């Protein structure tokens, strides 16, 4: 059952990813990315990461994608010009990307994974309690720094998006 769910979600994710890079209108790319996000959230659930699943749906598929949609609505439906100035760039990047994929593929061949050091109770693995416990004990400093990062990003976004000559 889990295998079937995995392959359906994986096919959805790959189809969405192809849609992101092949649609001409940006709004369709964003909607394809939402499909990828939802498929990935299902995979996170398969990997028993419940909290990451919820965060993926709310933060990514919810907030970030709505932000992208707002910006597209603000900027208008700018269609992309098909041809670029560097004619060889597409073929060159295809070659580069194929080489990168070949490297990743070769890396995955015959790899053996380290086994868990200690077996943990899988019924509480990835729940809100266990994530919160890790976040507020072992990862307390990164967590606090994250809040600083978000503050800086918010201030930067407000500063960048204010009107010209608006010095208040």
């Amino acid at each position, binding site marked *: 059952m*889990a295998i079937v769910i995995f392959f359906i979600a994986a096919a959805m994710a790959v189809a969405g990813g192809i849609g992101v890079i092949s649609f001409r209108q940006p709004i369709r790319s964003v909607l394809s990315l939402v499909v990828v996000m939802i498929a990935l959230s299902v995979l996170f659930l398969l990997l028993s990461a419940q909290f990451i699943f919820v965060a993926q749906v709310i933060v990514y598929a919810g907030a970030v994608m709505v932000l992208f949609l707002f910006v597209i609505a603000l900027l208008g439906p700018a269609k992309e010009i098909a041809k670029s100035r560097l004619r060889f760039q597409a073929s060159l990047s295809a070659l580069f990307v194929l080489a990168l994929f070949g490297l990743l593929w070769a890396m995955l061949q015959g790899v053996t994974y*380290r086994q868990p050091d200690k077996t943990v109770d899988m019924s509480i693995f990835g729940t809100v309690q266990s994530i919160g416990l890790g976040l507020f004990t072992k990862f307390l400093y990164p967590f606090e720094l994250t809040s600083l*990062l978000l503050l800086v990003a918010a201030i930067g976004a407000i500063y960048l998006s204010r009107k010209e000559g608006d010095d208040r």
Partner: protein
Amino acid sequence: MSGFDAGGSQLDTSWFLLLAAVLFILGTIGVLIRRNPLVILICIELMLNAANLTLVAFSRQLQNLDGQLFALMSMTVAAAEAVVGLAILVDIFRHRDVEDIDDLSELKG
């Protein structure tokens, strides 16, 4: 044994890593060949998501929660990156219409 049990059936960690590799590659293609700055930002989000998938997959394989916490951190960084990137784009688009990312070459000197 290279997998783990998920609801009674065996899942292979390599499948998740391969899927993440495919998604990352798709994002790389998008960054390299698309011309619209907005679409390039979207493709970067796709790549970050692929990296997140590997983090969570290894977290499950090693039964260690640190990977999931890393994934949470990278989600935050991705959100901040999207916000600042979109703000810069809106600011640029306010002054002129950019169809091609290569039009933005003033900083080249």
